[in-house]
């Protein structure tokens, strides 16, 4: 599998930013260029750490490359990427303490990381406090602005399940926001 430079004119959106080429097969370099930042953002929303988000994003693309022959023919390779990333993030969530200890051991200054407004960071932190599936659905819905059918496709569940997850997640977030307002007032 080779990454090749392709003419952007040959690309077309395959729905919600998913890139495909004219013959229906995506090209790795194009998918990588189009999807790296969105995946990084999703990983950050789910983990809250840039180093972890980078690691997860790169691991997702490594796995994409390893299965490129198959996934390139998918209608939505980006959906496959997001499912892999979410699965990786789920596993990694339990290992955050390990990573934190490891980073402390390294004791070196990390390079400049994207700066997120602390007020807005609190929103993603609240999302991460939700049960895993609710957090994943909410992140895909709000961050990626995806309709519930696409969220369901990525999470591998029914659309009705996604609607229920979103309802529960949004309800919890609203209660939390109301609580924050009360405590700040």
């Amino acid at each position: 599998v080779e990454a090749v430079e392709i003419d952007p004119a040959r690309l077309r959106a395959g729905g919600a930013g998913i890139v495909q080429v004219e013959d229906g097969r995506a090209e790795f370099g194009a998918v990588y260029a189009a999807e790296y930042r969105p995946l990084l953002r999703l990983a950050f929303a789910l983990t809250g750490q840039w180093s972890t988000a980078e690691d997860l994003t790169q691991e997702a693309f490594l796995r994409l490359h390893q299965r490129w022959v198959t996934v390139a023919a998918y209608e939505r390779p980006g959906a496959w990427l997001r499912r892999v990333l979410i699965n990786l993030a789920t596993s990694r969530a339990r290992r955050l303490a390990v990573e934190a200890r490891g980073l402390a051991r390294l004791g070196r200054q990390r390079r400049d990381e994207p700066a997120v407004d602390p007020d807005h960071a609190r929103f993603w932190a609240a999302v991460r406090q939700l049960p895993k599936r609710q957090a994943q659905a909410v992140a895909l819905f709000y961050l990626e602005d995806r309709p519930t059918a696409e969220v369901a496709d990525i999470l591998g569940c029914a659309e009705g399940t996604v609607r229920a997850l979103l309802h529960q997640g949004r309800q919890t977030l609203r209660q939390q926001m109301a609580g924050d307002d009360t405590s700040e007032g």
Partner: protein
Amino acid sequence: MAMDQLDRAAEQARQDLLRATDTVTPPSAETVIRRAQRRRQGRMAAGVAVAALVVGSTVVWLRPGGDDRSKVVAGQPATTTTEAPLVAAPPPGQVVVIEPASTGRPGAMVVLDVATGAVVRTLGADYGIYPSNGFQVTPDGRTLYWNRLNEPAQKIELVRQPIDGGTASVAVPNGAQPRFTSDGALMVFQSAGNPVGFVRRDLTSGADRDLPTPGEAGEVVVNTAFEQGRRTLVAITTRPVATCSGPGPGPNCPPSSPSPFHGWTIDVDDPGATWKPFATTATWDGGILLGPGPDPGSILLSRSEQPSGTRIAEVTADGTVPHEIQLPSGYRPLNVDRTGTNILVASDNALARVTLADPRPVRIAGPARLATW
């Protein structure tokens, strides 16, 4: 739908994240491709090495190793990810297996050589039922304990079987779920009754002492494990999915909603000890205990989730989860060795082993109904 306060906050947070990552320069695609190729080459090389070691045998390296754990950081040379070190212990040399019907010898209990998958010894056949919780080898690797149904007496016997092929004998006439301390000096098992009781047996003197039953009223014990290197037993309890007096399911036996699982712990050396909640960040719901973990005081917890599959987590006594792996699709965990590092897993067509450091299954033999180190 009108945008409410939550939607506005979400949109602002989204815009902020878009802005923050606008200037991020991804590592080049070529760098990722080179890493993927190195990983693939590493696996192929490892596969060749293993194939050379086992040529002529039935052992196959399902997904050869050679993992490239380096991480590409944008604008910087590759560095190594940091993970807590894991104790590496070689797998035991033998594994005891109950063969499934697909082998043509359903219920046959055999000892296999782990390196070759060859049958070393047949211990017996057609023992009837084998509750997975009752299939355990003592830490010295010399004695197998398993459960069998004594039909006339309607009791579950806990049977002791020397692995070198000696004669089997009944260790407990009505007991199940044997668990051993890592030094092999103590065994704890469940005794029959309602609720079931727990008994601590000193394997040197043979002296028994009753232990309290864990869990809240109406809960059942899922299974138990000793913490690594300690005489602290951990138990998982939950409420039964359905409780009914007649044959179910049916109108008189409605399934109840799933109830949460709880973790408990007790010092079996303290005669006055009671079960205490096991404080941890890990979720116990739907989990089972596999056995001791690799670090002192830790246990291994296994959970199956859809669609992500089965995960195995090391949970320490202080509540942290230092290591966690996800098994490949189609694999289920069976058992872990006394070091807490080598985990037996099975799929529909293979018995294999994995470790917390490398969750890729290494095939040992064909399919197995149950297996234990």
